[in-house]
């Protein structure tokens, strides 16, 4: 008698591969591990990575042939080192808190979005929306990045050795970006706070983004960050900050205002 495969489980959140098992293909040596992602699906790669980091307490994981798959290395909340030997697709290493990630290729859109802490070094280029809503940690991109880098950035540092696209630092609220190349139109548009350093030409500044006054603290910060990542001497940089012309806040919370009235 033919056996009928059970119907695929439905997940209202839209998750796929619900019943995927951990492949367990990693080669482990002490607290180091490595595995080849070529024939694994996105979910299998993430499951294997989680097994190594959370269950086995491995501190150094190397993943070969990620093949530009999307959503790899997302939501890792532990101190560890992760190396991707190759390029990643969209949403790479989002929501991470703690890991030191090294990507030897490039990343697609929305890499490291909402990252809380840790380090992510990308040897190649990055797509648009890199470091969106970044909360903390450092991101280093050695190539160029697309548009809207650090949109809604709330902390941390983004270092980009190449050029950046339009609307970089759009609505950023805190944190810093060091851009060694040229910047596209609308740099720092509607930013609330934070600092943008630019080495090259700025196509145009966004609304309420103005040149800032360079201080010794800026020199110390940039030199220190370049030293940490072995990037040599920093180029000559211009500083841009929020002009605070759009600040129309009431200094009192609604409940406080009631009390005053």
């Amino acid at each position: 008698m033919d056996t009928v495969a059970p119907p695929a489980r439905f997940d209202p959140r839209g998750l796929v591969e619900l019943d995927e098992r951990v492949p367990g293909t990693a080669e482990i040596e002490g607290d180091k591990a490595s595995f080849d992602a070529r024939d694994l699906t996105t979910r299998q790669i993430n499951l294997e990575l989680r097994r190594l980091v959370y269950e086995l307490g491995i501190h150094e994981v190397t993943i070969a042939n990620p093949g530009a798959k999307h959503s790899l290395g997302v939501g890792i909340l532990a101190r560890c080192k992760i190396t991707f030997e190759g390029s990643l697709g969209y949403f790479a290493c989002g929501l991470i808190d703690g890991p030191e990630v090294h990507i030897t290729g490039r990343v697609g859109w929305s890499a490291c979005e909402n990252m809380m802490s840790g380090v992510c070094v990308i040897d190649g280029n990055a797509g648009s929306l890199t470091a969106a809503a970044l909360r903390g940690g450092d991101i280093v991109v050695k190539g160029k990045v697309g548009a809207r880098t650090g949109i809604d950035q709330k902390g941390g540092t983004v270092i980009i050795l190449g050029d950046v696209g339009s609307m970089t630092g759009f609505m950023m609220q805190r944190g810093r970006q060091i851009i060694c190349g040229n910047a596209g139109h609308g740099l720092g548009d509607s930013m609330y706070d934070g600092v943008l350093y630019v080495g090259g030409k700025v196509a145009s500044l966004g609304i309420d983004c103005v040149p800032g006054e360079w201080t010794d603290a800026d020199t110390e910060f940039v030199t220190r960050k370049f030293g940490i990542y072995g990037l040599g001497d920093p180029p000559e940089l211009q500083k841009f900050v929020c002009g605070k012309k759009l600040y129309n806040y009431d200094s009192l919370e609604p409940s406080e205002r009631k009390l005053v009235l």
Partner: protein
Amino acid sequence: MCGIAGIIYRNGNGAQRLGADMTRMLQSMKHRGPDSTGYALYRPPTAELILRIKLADGEGNGDIEWADRLRHRREEVKARLRAAGASLASMEEVNDYTIAARLDYDGDLKHLADYVESVPGAEVLSAGSALEIVKDLGDAKTVGDAYKLDSYLGTHGIGHVRMATESDVDISNAHPYWAYPFSDVAVVHNGQLTNYHQWRRRLERLGHRFASDCDSEIIAVYLAQKMAEGATLEQAMRMSLEDLDGVFTYICVSDDALGMAKDELAAKPLVLYEGDDMVVLASEEIAIRAVIDREIETYDPYESEVMVWTR
């Protein structure tokens, strides 16, 4: 969200497995649009004019006179091609509702296309000496298998996976669009155009026809109009950045060139790989990796960029 892809082989002699490569790329982006899949495939130009004509939008849904209707349309199309002055070298019935006609014709292409399309239900999907457009419902594997594209050899091509946002899910509204009535030009688009109705009225007043309600068709007809006015493909694409509103990344192809244009907001993605042997571009790198199985260097074009490659 839709997915677009393009491939051009440098110094292509027409012996590359274009159909198989395009199917692999489009299938890897199925998550960007499972509604319909389309291809615009190019071979080295021939002396003949190739018309791909759709007689109906898919199957007849139980209409018992369906086969008769299609036979009648097919005969009518054949008669009109002859009456318009074309001599028919061959006519292949690709499936029940699609035919590929090879003609000897040196008259006005618009006249020929309009005459054929006045047969109820008929639509010229593509016309040219090098171009063939194949589009149907389903993912790339379904369409590629149904139209036997695995063995299709060619020089360059583009493709599209569609997630319908602006108009119906049917073959007419699927991409790529032929730049009616300009031979050998086709377009695929990812995005939404907000001044569609303005441009549609303008172009209709100039005598152009629209085969669908899809906003993307504007790009193809717009480029055709600009080229008819004397612009090159690249110049027409640059003008489109000013004239078209909305968010878009599109790929446009002619018989010897392939170009991309991105709007000033850079709101829709595109990843580029420029190698010695080929140029490949797609909405996601995962599609490029479907045809190149090694570590490669790719980048994203910036806002308002237009790039054109020739084969």
